[in-house]
């Protein structure tokens, strides 16, 4: 067996097929304003935003091992920045989303320096405490409505588009675009040299450190980038809601618990997991939400059963059985055709 008889590929028939299907699905989804109803578009928009949040949480918790239960800090911060920048700064809402992202990164730096001193469960609790600090702080700002919150002025909403259907199409496309950008960014990051380092950290920190990987720096970058993008998603979420209050903006249930549910049942530590998880979560929600508290109990049961029976989530189950991968991330060593049978 000689090494020159082998070559390395990253794509496979499955990844090529997945890419083609993804492009077709994208075309159909971009055209949604022409075929979908108003309620369907709202639902899909929300689904895309959850998909983006879940993909980001997965990158941070599933790869970098930073199990944060305080990402609502950035969702809420983004929402409030959108309101503040448009109401007091006179900015266009779409520009405000971008600026919110930069501000999210800036505020994530001191937060990271503080909470990175904590490990494991203490880190998780620390992130939650930080989120509560954010919530209580914004509740003090009377110009943003204090504890009871405020609504986005009509003038700012109109600046998006004069017509209601125009606004709905725009916010749908923004949501779709954000999900695509987040997944593409996560994919490109994981495929890069840094992604290899991050995957190594996911599997074994001791060995990763001994092979030249700066663990603290890698995690810091992931945390700050995740925070910036989560802030932008938060701004987008509250651009759709048009109303913000501290309790809604910094809800641990809405912006972290559901997101963790999605990632865990879909398959943590894979790109495909959050996509599957989001679809399952919305399917459950749309069919069971009328049942009230029973719906939340069903979610709990589903989470427990999957954690016991398939700790790597539904995608983990599929991948183990069919050795399938939709995003070409892994390296496969193949025997070159010319030398087969030699």
């Amino acid at each position, binding site marked *: 067996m*000689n090494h020159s008889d082998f070559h390395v590929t990253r794509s496979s028939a499955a990844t090529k097929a997945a890419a083609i299907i993804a492009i077709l699905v994208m075309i159909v989804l971009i055209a949604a304003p022409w075929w979908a109803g108003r309620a369907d578009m709202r639902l899909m928009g929300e689904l895309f935003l959850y998909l983006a949040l879940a993909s980001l949480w997965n990158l941070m918790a599933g790869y970098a091992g930073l199990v944060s239960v305080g990402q609502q800090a950035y969702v809420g911060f983004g929402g409030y920045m959108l309101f503040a920048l448009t109401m007091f700064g006179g900015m266009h809402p779409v520009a405000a989303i971008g600026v919110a992202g930069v501000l999210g990164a800036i505020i994530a730096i001191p937060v990271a320096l503080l909470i990175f001193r904590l490990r494991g469960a203490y880190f998780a609790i620390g992130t939650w405490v930080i989120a509560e600090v954010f919530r209580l702080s914004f509740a003090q700002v009377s110009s943003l409505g204090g504890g009871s919150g405020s609504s986005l002025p009509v003038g700012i909403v109109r600046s998006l588009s004069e017509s209601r259907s125009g606004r709905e199409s725009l916010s749908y496309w923004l949501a779709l675009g954000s999900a695509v950008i987040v997944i593409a960014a996560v994919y490109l990051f994981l495929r890069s*040299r840094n992604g*290899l380092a991050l995957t190594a950290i996911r599997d074994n920190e*001791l060995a990763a*450190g*001994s*092979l030249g990987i700066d*663990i603290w720096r890698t995690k810091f970058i992931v945390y700050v980038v995740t925070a910036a993008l989560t802030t932008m998603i938060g701004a987008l979420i509250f651009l759709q809601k048009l109303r913000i209050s501290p309790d809604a903006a910094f809800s641990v249930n809405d912006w972290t618990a559901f997101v963790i549910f999605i990632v865990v049942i879909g398959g943590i530590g894979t790109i495909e997991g959050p996509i599957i998880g989001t679809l399952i979560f919305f399917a459950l929600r749309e069919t069971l939400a009328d049942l009230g508290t029973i719906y939340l109990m069903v979610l709990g049961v589903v989470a427990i059963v999957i954690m016991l029976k398939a700790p790597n989530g539904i995608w983990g189950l599929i991948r183990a059985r069919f050795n399938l991968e939709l995003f070409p991330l892994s*390296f*496969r060593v193949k025997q070159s055709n010319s030398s087969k049978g030699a």
Partner: protein
Amino acid sequence: MTAFLQLDQVTKSFGAVTVADELTYGVEAGEALGVIGPNGAGKTSMFNLITGTLQPNSGKVHFNGQDVTSMNAAKRCRSGMARSFQVPQPFSGMTVFENAMVAATQAAGLSGHEAEKFCLEVLEQTELLDRANTLAGGLTLLGRKRLELTRALCARPKLLMLDEIAGGLTEAECASLVKTIKDIHASGVTIIWIEHVVHALLAVVDRLIVIDFGKKIAEGEPHAIMKSPEVQEIYLGIEADA
């Protein structure tokens, strides 16, 4: 005058247990040093202190002309040292080839096809080429030990530190491992090898040190060291236990 790797009065203790007690010795570039000593003597801790996984309470470590005592493990690795772990530490969710690629890209600084080709070469050398696409978590213990060696080699180190990689091998496997390590040494890589399989060790190393209770108790020409009464006492003790 400091050697290529120089330990100077390196001391580390955990409460009452001293794992390194004023360890002082040097390894010259291109040398192969063997390390023996009973279980729990502090051999692996010594590796942890050299590679930066542990920080000493006092003392200095110099490597390749610079004081690395305050550097973390990652930085020391990038400055040219790589190790294998006695208890294998694979990246379980990645394939054997991807494990190798981590070392080649992060530690050796290679990229693209150059990195891929280099990893394939090393995998051939360590006889893991046919398992390249296997998840590292699914390897046998022997496979995991080979993977430890593979990763350390893919880091393209100037100083290679091996921690008990011959244990549990058959005679034939051990012979091929010895040949591999001799080849690596012949290519100019400095080696420190902790090993209980003494005949494998003696086939490679130029010099031997003996560690017990964190202290260096003997140092010198391998065969002479093995014949000394204190080593006989310690080592026959181990053999009787085994």
